[in-house]
C-alpha cells in the first residue's frame, strides 16, 4: 500500500487534517476518510457532476481532483451549505419547485447552482442551462431544476 500523506485543508470553513493515499481522489477522501457522503459517485470520470464541490471558489468534479491537491485550499461541500436552522435559498427553491425525484444528483446540482449564482446572480434561462450542462439528472427532465435555480436567483 502506498504511503499515506498528511493533508491540511479548510473544509466548509473549518480546518481539517486527514491522511490519504496519493491515488485517492477528493471524492474518495470526502466519502471514505471524512465520512461526508453528500457528494456522490455517478461516473468517477467527470461526466455526471454528482460529486460537484467548490474548490477555492471554483466548481470542480471532486472525482477529478486528488485529495492531496487540496493541501492549503478551501473546499465547500453540500454539507456546509445550510445553517443550523435555515436552508440555503437554493435548497429552499429545490424543495418548493419539487426539483428532485430520486435526489442522487441533487447535491451536485445545488453546488453547481451555487457556483453559478456566486458569480452571476441574475442568470437567464439559457445561462442556467449552459452552466448546469455538466450535471446529469435522469429523473426530472431538468424543467423544475432550471426553474428552481431561476427562483433562487430571484429570491436573493
Amino acid at each position: 500500500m502506498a504511503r499515506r500523506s498528511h493533508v491540511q485543508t479548510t473544509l466548509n470553513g473549518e480546518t481539517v487534517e486527514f491522511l490519504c493515499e496519493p491515488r485517492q481522489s477528493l471524492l474518495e477522501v470526502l466519502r471514505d476518510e471524512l465520512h461526508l457522503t453528500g457528494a456522490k459517485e455517478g461516473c468517477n470520470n467527470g461526466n455526471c457532476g454528482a460529486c460537484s464541490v467548490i474548490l477555492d471558489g471554483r466548481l470542480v468534479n471532486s472525482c477529478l481532483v486528488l485529495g492531496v491537491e487540496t493541501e492549503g485550499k478551501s473546499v465547500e461541500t453540500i454539507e456546509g451549505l445550510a445553517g443550523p436552522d435555515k436552508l440555503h435559498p437554493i435548497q429552499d427553491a429545490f424543495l418548493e419547485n419539487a426539483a428532485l425525484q430520486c435526489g442522487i444528483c441533487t447535491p451536485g446540482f445545488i453546488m453547481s447552482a451555487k457556483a453559478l449564482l456566486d458569480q452571476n446572480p441574475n442568470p437567464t434561462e439559457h445561462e442556467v442551462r449552459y452552466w448546469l450542462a455538466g450535471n446529469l439528472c435522469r429523473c426530472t427532465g431538468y424543467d423544475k431544476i432550471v426553474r428552481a435555480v431561476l427562483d433562487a436567483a430571484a429570491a436573493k
Partner: protein
Amino acid sequence: MLENKEYKVIGTRPIRHDGVDKVTGRALYGADFQAAGLLHGRVLRSPHAHARIISIDTSRAEALPGVKSVVTAKDLPDAGDKVADLGEGAVNLKHLCDNILASDKVLYKGHAVAAVAATNPHIAEEACTRIDVEYEVLPPVLEVRQAMAPDAPLLHEHLKTASMGETADEPSNVASHLQHKLGDPEKGFAEADIIIEREFVTGTVHQGYIEPHNATAHYNADGQLTIWCSTQGAFTVREQVAEILQYPISKIKVVPMEIGGGFGGKISVYIKPVAALLAKKTGKPVKVLMNRADVFEGTGPTPASYIRVKMGATKEGKITAAEAYLAFEAGAYPGSPVGPGAMCIFAPYSIENVIIDGYDVVVNKPKTAPYRAPGAPNAAFGSETVVDEIAEKLGIDPLEIRLLNAAKEGDRRADGPVHPRIGCIETVEAAKAHPHYTAPNGKKHHGRGVASGYWFNIGLESSVTINVNSDGTINLVEGSTDIGGTRASIAMQAAEVLGISAESVNPSVVDTNSVGYTAVTGGSRTTYATGYAAYEAAQDVKRQMIARAAKLWEVDEANVQFADGEFSSINGKEEQISFRDLCARLGETGGPIVGSGTVNPGGAGGAYATHVVDVAVDEETGKVDILRYTAVQDAGKAIHPSYVEGQIQGGAVQGIGWALNEEYIYNAEGEMTNASFLDYRMPTCLDLPMIDAVIVEVPNPGHPYGVRGVGEVPIVPPMAAIANAIYDAIGVRMTELPMSPDRLLKAMGKI
C-alpha cells in the same frame, strides 16, 4: 385543467417528507453505508461477448496482500433445472445464477466471472487483474434478425422455442413466440382503402440512473444475512437472493437505502448475491460497488428491436385492421419485454381486426431489464409512425385520426382485456386544445409531430401500518422504496382519510423484517397500490378511533361520525372531539392504536398520453433540436401534481434521449464502444426546452381517489412524435432509432 373541489390534501403540493435530507446531502444511499471492519468487493467481468470458460485460476489474486476472499460460480449452489417465480414471472434459476457469476459460458462483454473482497477498493480492483481466466472465444450474435437466422451461432445449446403451448425440437436463439389475434385481419385489410406497411429498427438503450448498483452484505454467526442496498424492491431482493443462494427468506433481512434512480433497472439483482457470498466467506461486512462501465456493460439495458407494422384504413380514416411483428432482443438470457410491447402497441385505438406476433430472442448483449413501460416505446415508435403516415396520406389531421379511432370503455385490447373507463379521448382532445398545437410553426426545416401512447399499469401487493401518536400525528410505515416522491403521495392519501395535514404524517420506508410484503416500486404501481394500502390503514385507524370516541361518550359506535378532522356524536348527545385531542386520550380509552392495510388490487387503471413536439433540423449537420414540447397525460387523480408533472417531464426527456442520441454502439467483436456518460449521450439541460406537462384527470374506478399510475407512459410517445416532427420538417420518414445526425444525413441523402 386540475380540479380539486372534493379534497383537502390530495391535489395540493406539500414539501416532500424526505426533501430536507436530500437537499442537504444527509440522505443515505446504498453506497453511503458504512460499517466497522468493512471490506470492499469488486467484480471481474468478461472481455469477450461470447466465449466458453476453460479455466479460472484465482491463486495470484488470493496471494495479493489485503485480499480476503475470491469467489466464482463454483461458490453458488447448483441451480439444477429449477424454475422460480419471483413475482416478475417464471425465471429459469440456472439463467438467473449464471447472470450473477458465469459458470460455463460468458454471454456478453461485462458478464461477471469472479469477485474479490479486499481491505480497500483499489486492492480489490488490482486483484481482479490477477485472476487468470482462459477462454475459448466464440463468434458473437449481436442483432435480433441475425440471431433468428437458422445458421446463427447458438447462445444456449438447450434453448428451444416455446410457441403457444408447443416446444420446438431443435435448439434456437428464439426463446419464445407469442400471438394475439382479434377479429379477422384478412377481412379488415380487404376493407381498407389505404394500407401502409413499414419496418423499424430500434437500438439498445440503458435506463441511465445516475447511481450505480451497490450492495453491502453481512453474515452473522447465527446465519442471519443482512443486505443494505439500493433497490426498487427490498422484498424482491430477498426473494432473488434466497433462490440464488438457496437460503431461507426468514434468515435474510434486506434494508433498502435511498435509491438513486432505477426506471426498472434496479429490480434484478446483480452484485447483491455476490456481496452475500463474499460476506459469508470472510465473516465481515462486504460492500460491492459497480463503476459506470460495469453499469452499462453488466446490467440490463432495454432491448434493441426489429418491428414491422401494417395498418389499413378507409378513406374516411377509420382503421380497419392492424398487424405487428415484434422481434425483441432479450440479451443473454430469455425474458425481453416483447409481451408488454404486444399488449400496448395498438391500445390507443379501437380496431376490430388485429394480429400481433412477438418473438423473444437471445443475443450476446447484457440480459435486458425493465425500463419504464418496458416494450411499449419500441412498439409505439412503429405504430404511431404508421398512423401518422396514414393521416398524412388521407389528408386528415393526425390528432383527428386518433380521435376518430380512439379506444374507449368497453373496447377489447388485442391481447384480451376489455378497457374499463380510460382517458384516451380526453388526452387527445386536451392536446388538440392546447395552444402549442395551433401555434405557428412554418419556418424552413422546422416541424411539428404528435404521437400517443399507452401503458396498462399494475397493482400487486402492498402493506402499510400506521402508528398513532399522542400529538395528533401518525407514523406511516411502508415497504415501497421512494424513487420520486412517493413518501409524499402515499402519506397524503392517509392524511386525506384522517383529516390531518400532509405534514402530520411521518412516512418511513423500512426493511423486510419491519413491514408486510410489498412488491417492487415499478409498473407505475406505488402511488396506486401502496397509496391504496395507506388509505386502508387510515380507514382502520379511523374505525378504531370511532370506537374510542364511542367509549369516551358511552354511546354506540354507530352514533359517532367523523368529518373534517372531528369526531362527533349523533342521535342525542352533543359531543365533539378533534382527531388530535382524541389521539391524546388513547391511553385511557384502551391503549395505543395501530392501523394496518394490505392490498393486492386488481383495478390498476391504464394510462394514456399524447405528446406534441416541435423540432428544428439542421440541414448541414443532421442535428435535431427540440424547440417546444407538450406532454398530455391522464393521471386519473394527481395526488401531488408537482411530482406527477415531474414524472411526465422526466419520462418525456428520457424518450427524447432515446429518440435522438442514445444507443449502445458495438464493434464487430461485440464490445460496447461507448460505455461512459460522455459517449452514451443522455440529454443535458442545455439540449432541452421546458417540458409543458398537462395533467388530465379521468378517475380510475379501481382506486378510492381515482389514481392511475403515472410513471411509465410518458416515455412511450416521444420517439414517434419526434420522428413525425422530423418528417414534417424535412419530408423524410425516419424508421431507425436513434435519429442521430449521421442517420439524418443518410436519410436526407447527404452522406
